[in-house]
Structures are given as structure tokens and as C-alpha cells.
């Protein structure tokens, strides 16, 4: 029997879902409201030097990679299911496009992090 690669996508979906459920609210608040407005967190938290230093070390790279990539894989699977629910795509081509885009974004994120 041909082995399915579905479990890989479901694992990535689950990991992204848990990560978003556990720290999504705080992340959105800090990056989108707190730091830009100087609420609760220091506005200097997201300055160039701070973030360059954070992304310059292994732990920082891992955090940034996990958040971006897992959120994207999580969303990709659900968007594909949503399209299927509306009778759009749902076929192999749509899945290839969706997962292909997520894979490209993953490689691009890794490439950017290696530059820092």
C-alpha cells in the first residue's frame, strides 16, 4: 500500500494550531499594537538592533521560524479544507498549489534567517 503523506500536513497543522492557541494573542498584541503604540511593552522592543540581535542567535531564529512557518502550514490546511467545503478546487491541483506555496514560504523564511 502506498504510504500517505497526509500525516505530515496534519502534524504541521496541529503544531501551528497549538502554538497559535497558546501564544497567538500575546504575539499579535505585542507586534501589532503594544510595540507600535508603546503600550505595556517598550517601543524600543522592536527596534532594528534589538531584532537583529534576537534573530542573530539560534534561539531567536528558531522562535521566528516556528511562528511564521507553523502558522502558515496550519492556515494552509484549513484554507484548503474551506475551499473544499465550498466546492472550489479540493482536487489534487489545489492541494499542490496550497502546499507548494507553504513550502516555498518555509524555504524563504529559512533563507532569510540564515542571512541574519
Amino acid at each position, binding site marked *: 500500500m502506498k504510504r500517505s503523506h497526509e500525516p505530515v500536513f496534519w502534524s504541521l497543522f496541529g503544531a501551528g494550531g497549538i502554538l497559535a492557541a497558546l501564544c497567538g494573542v500575546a504575539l499579535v498584541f505585542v507586534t501589532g*499594537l503594544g510595540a507600535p503604540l508603546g503600550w505595556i511593552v517598550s517601543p524600543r522592543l522592536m527596534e532594528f538592533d534589538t531584532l537583529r540581535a534576537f534573530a542573530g542567535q539560534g534561539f531567536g531564529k528558531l522562535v521566528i521560524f516556528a511562528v511564521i512557518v507553523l502558522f502558515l502550514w496550519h492556515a494552509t490546511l484549513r484554507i484548503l479544507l*474551506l475551499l473544499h*467545503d465550498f466546492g472550489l478546487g479540493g482536487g489534487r491541483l489545489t492541494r499542490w498549489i496550497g502546499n507548494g506555496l507553504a513550502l516555498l514560504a518555509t524555504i524563504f523564511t529559512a533563507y532569510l534567517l540564515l542571512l541574519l
Partner: protein
Amino acid sequence: MSARIEPGRTDPRRPWRRSMRGWWHRNPYYLRYLAMEATSILIALYALILLLGLWRLTEGEAAWAAWLAMLKSPVSLALHAILLPVFAFHSYSWFRIMPKTLPAIEWRGKRLKQTTITALGIAAAVAVNLALLLLLAGVQP
């Protein structure tokens, strides 16, 4: 399971098939399901905003400053104000569904109730979010 009919060919038995058109407003539960699934689009959007930020970070200080200025724009602030309840809703629905996806868990000889698992999950989400917020609030670069 009936055999698949190839596209463009009609089944000679002509079985009745319920139309799927407009299925989402047949039942309030379906609408709630759709609201839950639609959050995934905004989660993807948030990830793409962060990816753009990472890209700008690699391009140097001026590019990064432009991305920060974009974050301070009213459109971005409004978007993040919408993203906040969306992520909270994701968190709630994630832990509401989680017990249904897990095998039965026993605790002191009794099966753990679904509502207990949901409550524990939400408590964990509140704790982790608060801890992260306090940690970042304490950072003084």
C-alpha cells in the same frame, strides 16, 4: 459507497443528490463552523506580515523602519485590533474541539470530562499568553 461516476457522464440510475448550494446557511451550526474556519485566513495574513518584517530586517535599517511605520498606520492598527479577538476565538475553538480529537484520558479511575479538558486548555492558553506578555513587558532594550 457507490461507484464514482466520471465527470461529464450521468449515472444511468439517476440517484437523487442533495444540492450542496448554500449549505452554510441551512443550520446555525454551519455558520459557526465557517466563522471558525475563516480565522485561518487571518492567521495566514498575520504570518505573512511577520514574514514581510523578517524580509525587511534582512534588508537593513531603512527597510525595517518602513515596515515599522507601516505597523503604526491606522490600517495596520485596526487590522491588529481585529486579529486580537480572532486569535482569542481560535484559541477558544481549538481547546473546545481538542477533547473530541483525543483518546479518552483517565484520571483516578474516571474518564476526564470534555469540559474539563477544554477548561484546562483555556487556562493554559491564558497562562502562556500572560507569561509571554509579562516577559516581553520586562524587556528593556
